[in-house]
């Protein structure tokens, strides 16, 4: 339910000040015509008190029944009813109060001025009605916008969560199989691999989307992953990592690089039969965190010519959801080397 404009203290104060000024003007005007001051004060209090009450009621009615589209008649009708009622009621009350014969002249003046007073009351009520309609319409729009934003944020969070969760079950089962083999031949290494795998899994599970991590931490879980893969693939896989200390201090969404490195491994190891070196370079360039991952591939058989290829779409989508930019992932092929470059703008506000 929308708030009434009179529930906002700023507007409520304005409302009362307006009525005090207006009431004072009313009393002053009538006194200036030579009528008794008591009569004009009583008139001002009764008339404007009733009118103010009417406006208060109007603002509450509109809170529940807001006219839609072109229902101008509703606005007119509401203002007319309230001005008629308040005007007649004030005339009736004043006739009851001002019984002293001194005030007879004033009562005649009051009766003569009935239509003018009705006109003024109508204008006041009308003003109030129009202001309230504007206010509530705007309130409602804001509420809708808020709701839409909330819904979008929810679905975006869900999507980001899903994108992050796509851990390869293949990797997990093959790692367990390696551990199973090591238990027989090399229990010490088996144990250390269990620890690496646990640390890696914990790192992937723990991180919340909006808790950005520094590159140092991201690289640690990547290295865990790579160490496990090295145990699996033996001498076929080696890695070289170049880190620039400035880049290592920059922030990155958690697990963003995981699919990039998984791809590098997948295409490096499954697309060639030779020994494979995966290079990772982290650097800072123009206040942008730049991560370059390269892997060998076979241009004869791999399908990078098919669009983006190499399954980097989830990374692209995630960066788009975070930055509304599509130019942060770049891929290039040079002979038998495939290069993926990820650019991450500086992260100013982690809550955003």
């Amino acid at each position, binding site marked *: 339910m929308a708030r009434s404009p009179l529930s906002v203290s700023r507007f409520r104060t304005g409302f009362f000040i307006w009525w005090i000024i207006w009431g004072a003007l009313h009393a002053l005007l009538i006194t200036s015509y030579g009528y008794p001051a008591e009569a004009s004060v009583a008139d001002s209090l009764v008339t404007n008190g009733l009118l103010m009450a009417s406006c208060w009621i109007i603002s509450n009615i509109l809170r529940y029944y807001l006219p839609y589209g072109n229902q101008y008649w509703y606005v007119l009708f509401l203002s007319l009813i309230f001005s008629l009622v308040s005007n007649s009621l004030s005339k009736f009350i004043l006739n009851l109060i001002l019984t002293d014969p001194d005030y007879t002249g004033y009562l005649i003046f009051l009766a003569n001025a009935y239509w003018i007073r009705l006109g003024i009351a109508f204008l006041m009520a009308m003003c109030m009605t129009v202001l309230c309609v504007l206010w509530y319409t705007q309130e409602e729009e804001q509420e809708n916008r808020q709701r839409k934003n909330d819904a979008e944020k929810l679905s975006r969070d869900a999507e980001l969560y899903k994108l992050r969760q796509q851990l390869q*079950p*293949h990797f*997990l*089962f*093959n790692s*367990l*199989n*390696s*551990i*199973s*083999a*090591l238990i*027989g*031949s090399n229990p010490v290494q088996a144990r250390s691999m269990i620890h690496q795998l646990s640390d890696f899994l914990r790192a992937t599970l723990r991180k919340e989307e909006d808790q950005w991590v520094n590159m140092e931490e991201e690289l640690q879980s990547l290295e865990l992953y790579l160490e496990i893969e090295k*145990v*699996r*693939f*033996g001498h*076929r896989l080696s890695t070289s990592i170049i880190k620039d200390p400035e880049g290592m201090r920059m922030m990155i969404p958690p697990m963003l690089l995981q699919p990039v490195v998984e791809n590098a491994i997948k295409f490096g*190891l*499954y*697309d*060639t*039969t030779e020994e494979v070196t995966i290079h990772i370079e982290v650097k800072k360039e123009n206040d942008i965190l730049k991560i370059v991952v390269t892997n060998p591939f*076979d241009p*004869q*058989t791999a*399908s990078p*010519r*098919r669009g983006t290829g190499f399954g980097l779409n989830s990374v692209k989508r995630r960066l788009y959801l975070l930055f509304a930019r599509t130019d942060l992932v770049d891929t290039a092929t040079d002979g038998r080397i495939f290069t993926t470059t990820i650019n991450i703008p500086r992260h100013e506000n982690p809550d955003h």
Partner: protein
Amino acid sequence: MKTLIIDDEPLARSIIKEYLQFHPELELIGECNDGFEGFKAIQQLQPGLIFLDIQMPKINGFEMLELIEDPPAVIFTTAFDEYAIKAFESHAVDYLLKPFSKERFDKAIAKWQQSGKRSIEKEQLGNLLGASSSPAEQQRVVVKMAGKIRIIPVDDILYLEAADDYVKIHTREGAFLKNKTMSYFESVLDGSQFVRTHRSFMVNVVEITRIDPYEKENHLALLKSGAQIPVSKTGYAKLKSVLGL
């Protein structure tokens, strides 16, 4: 009985070796790193049983088997893979899901021995390959030429031509034979790219430069390479709908 292990992970091979020690009737004659090595070793050493991983460099386990004229008995070993598991269950080939226990391994051996040490049938293999390949693997065709293995990305195929029991795959670098039927390729290849224009021809629509009328109700499609492909009446209708004419 001679056996062979084909798996790209050294530790995955070592656990099979360890379990095999308890089966002296099975003699381990070799270990292979990938499908290419496996292909060579099977032809040279003629094992009676192989342990075959599916996800391997270059060509997968199914593709490798497909290249072998007379494949041996196979026990597949694989980590979780939704494509493969469905295929195994519907075709009753034995498989071991990594990591597997010694008991499960022994059971697979016993099952194979009870079945009369049956080797895998070519037909069964075709079904497995069709049902288990991931979309990425359907982007290529593996062929064998003069004892060497070639991987042809489907985009490189100009057209396919039926030739007795084979299908001739025409590419810019020449033609390759594959022991398959036209309807197999029709079911595997992307229908918006490859159209069966004729009983014996299937064409990559990207390659077509012109379609001319030819005798009565037939047409001829002219390809960029200069080849002319017959188009039957029904083939012409299919071609028109794919090209949006």
